[in-house]
């Protein structure tokens, strides 16, 4: 039973990392949103599985939140936003796909190396692996925020970073439920605020390319 539980948790967390890689090279915005929804779905499954094997019932609620908010509402809202902004064309990356993928691989290697080393004393092998994957997802999310120019894909990067946080929290059996709910809500509110800003930016500059902001501030690239 235990090995079986371990394998499935491993599979789900590993697929989250895999989907993060898909996010990195996905350069069409609708595809990006769909992949993000897939990641959130996987997250919900991973959390639910953790709830089942840990016997922690409140984690089911977390899973439900992830499913409803992250996998349905956020992608749907972003979809609508993109449609209304009329930017359903290419997503431009600043750095090419290949270097980004290579950097991503390096980050995953770093986080696995680090986490397995740091938690060598810990009993729970499951938590160790989970933490390593979660850190990878977080770092890949940050990488995405750094390498993208489009504001919408930066939002997606931010959300995927937050997915990594949730994964870490459920794996480590640490985060209290209240905190988790408030994090979920704050992410939702962040999305609303960012959405509002997106529209304001577009109104002002006819673009959501954040380079426009830099030009406006008189910066050189």
């Amino acid at each position, binding site marked *: 039973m235990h090995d079986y539980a371990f394998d499935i948790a491993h599979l789900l967390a590993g697929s989250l990392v895999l989907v993060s890689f898909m996010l990195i090279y996905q350069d069409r915005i609708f595809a990006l949103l769909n992949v993000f929804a897939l990641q959130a779905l996987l997250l919900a499954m991973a959390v639910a599985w953790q709830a089942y094997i840990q016997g922690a019932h409140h984690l089911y609620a977390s899973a439900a939140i992830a499913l409803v908010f992250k996998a349905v509402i956020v992608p749907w809202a972003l979809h609508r936003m993109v449609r209304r902004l009329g930017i359903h064309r290419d997503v431009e990356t600043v750095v090419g796909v290949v270097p980004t993928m290579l950097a991503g691989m390096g980050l995953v290697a770093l986080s696995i190396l*680090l986490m397995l080393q*740091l938690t060598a004393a810990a009993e729970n092998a499951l938590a160790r692996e989970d933490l390593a994957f979660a850190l990878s997802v977080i*770092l890949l999310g*940050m990488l995405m*925020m750094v390498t993208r*120019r489009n504001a919408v894909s930066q939002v997606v990067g931010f959300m995927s970073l937050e997915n990594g946080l949730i994964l870490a929290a459920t794996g480590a059996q640490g985060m209290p439920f209240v905190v988790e709910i408030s994090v979920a809500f704050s992410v939702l509110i962040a999305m609303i605020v960012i959405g509002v800003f997106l529209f304001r930016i577009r109104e002002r500059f006819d673009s959501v390319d954040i380079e426009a*902001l*830099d030009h406006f*501030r008189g*910066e050189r690239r």
Partner: protein
Amino acid sequence: MGVAAAATTAAVLLALSLGAVATARRRWAPAVIYMLSGAACVVQALAGIAALATRAGTTSLTVPIGLPWMGAHLAQDALSSVFLALLGTGGAAASFYAAGYGRHEHEPQRVLPFFPGFLGAMTLVILAADAFTFLLSWEIMSLLSWALVLAHHRDEGSRSAGYLYLVMAAFGTMVLLLAFGLMAGAQGGYEFAAIRAVERTPGIAALVLGLMVIGAGSKAGLVPLHVWLPVAHPAAPSHVSALMSGVMTKVAVYGFIRVCFDLVGPVDWWMSPIIIVIGVGTAVMGILFAIMDGDGKRILAFSTIENIGVIFTALGLALAFRANGMQAMAALAMTAALLHAVNHMMFKSLLFMVMGAVLNATGRKDLDGLGGLIHRMPATSFLALVGVTAISALPPLNGFVSEWLLFQTVLQSPRLPQPALQFMVPAAGGLLALAAALAAACFVRFYGVAFLGRARSGDVAAATETDRWSLGAMAGMALLCVLAGILPGYLVDLLAPAADLVVGARIAPQGGNAWLTLVPVADVRSSYSGFLVMVFVAVTGSAVAWLVHRLASQRLRRGPAWDCGFPNADPITQYGGGSVAQPIRRVMASVLAAHETVLMPRPGDMGPARHSAGVEDLAWSRLYLPVAAAVIGATTRLNGLQFLTIRRYLGLVFASLILLLVGLALWN
């Protein structure tokens, strides 16, 4: 009595500050506020002296103000009592002086609200018995004195002095914070009682001592941390200068003694030569700059640096003797340090008050603009004479007693077991003697140029004697100088409990000695009686005066003076400040970085020849300017970080995170 009385005066002083905020612009405000703070200071002085005279033990008090669940711990032991008495005396003199002097202040609202609070904060520093209260009061003291330095803020010099002072004060407090943080140890007990109980390794103790030399030394004015002092002390109104020089530097000395002799526990002997070298260097450099300077108040401020050097030398000796278990000798050195602190408070306050009176009467404080004041302000000039005699360490006044005690300590150095100290201490003694001689030269110049001779400007020729309050306060201080000079035994006995507290021994009681003699080390039989010296000076002086009068006065003829071929010589041709300083500037040229240039016009050129001479503070050009340039350079570079794009900020955060993670991975 005990600590409650002193704490109450501190509260009264702080409340007075708040009261002054509301009333500073009223006509009656200066007199009332200065009188009330003077009264509070008198109570403080009495509380300190009474505790010393009755050998009262430590009294403590916890006030529920400050950090939650901790409160502020206050305590008064013998050491606090000494400095409380010092603070009360100096504060009372400055307050009563200001009752007259403060009337001339153009903007009393810039001085009144800060003055009592400054006194109150210094009281709290002395009474503090936990690190938090100590540092908070220390910082309030720094900030309020900074506000007082800026009282004449329309003056460009005052503004830059204030800025320099603020930077140095913040730096000093930060270093003190580190020192207390090191002392608290892992348990995090910040009460002094808890800090005393912690066992420290010698390395930590030495580190704390080093930090205290920097932290307290920057407030006291140790070279090379002294640069703010000669600009900030004179920039304040004179009664505040008197407080800053006479009292605030002593509060810094108190902080040093409290931490290094009381809280930190035993210290290895090898720290003491460092302090002695710094002290002696401070003494010599301070007085050299005093001789070179042309501004009366700056001369006094530089002389404060010299006296602080003397005090720290004595403290270094006390440390050396204590580390070798020679408690009696350590007590002698500690007594010399405390006595010199008290004496310096008396004569430095007196001299700053004199300069304030001169400044009010003439509007000038540059030596080469003054002259001949003895005819216009005879009472002030007489009191100034007492002050300069005392500060030049001439018997029978008080400055001599403490320096003599210090030299008695230096003479005991062959008893020290370490050869390094055996060689070094006599050399330090020689340099101290040089500093003492230079101090005498400095104040001959000060008094001779400013008070004797003929007036060098019209303002000075029209000067009138200062007001009664100022004269009263100055006369009080002059009287104390004389009394401390001829009755040193009683003063030494009062200081004994403090020395006993910090070095574990005291010098023998002196009060009952015949002819009021001071016998610090009984078996060496060196002794000094200020009273006998005074009687001798009085008798011989009167005899000489009588003889001169008897033999010469009748034969006095008045006739034209020989004028060297220049009739109606201008007063500016008198021997001036620069003239007295010149030989010493030439001799000490390398130490002072003295420069002198003569520009001769070519034959046929009608332009004037120019001679310019000056000195430079090497600490400023070699230490402060490079540090300032480095800071400015770094901040200019980093300023670019304010204007990055959002993505670059994200990238920066990301990169630093990755860097830290990689570092962590490698470190493991």
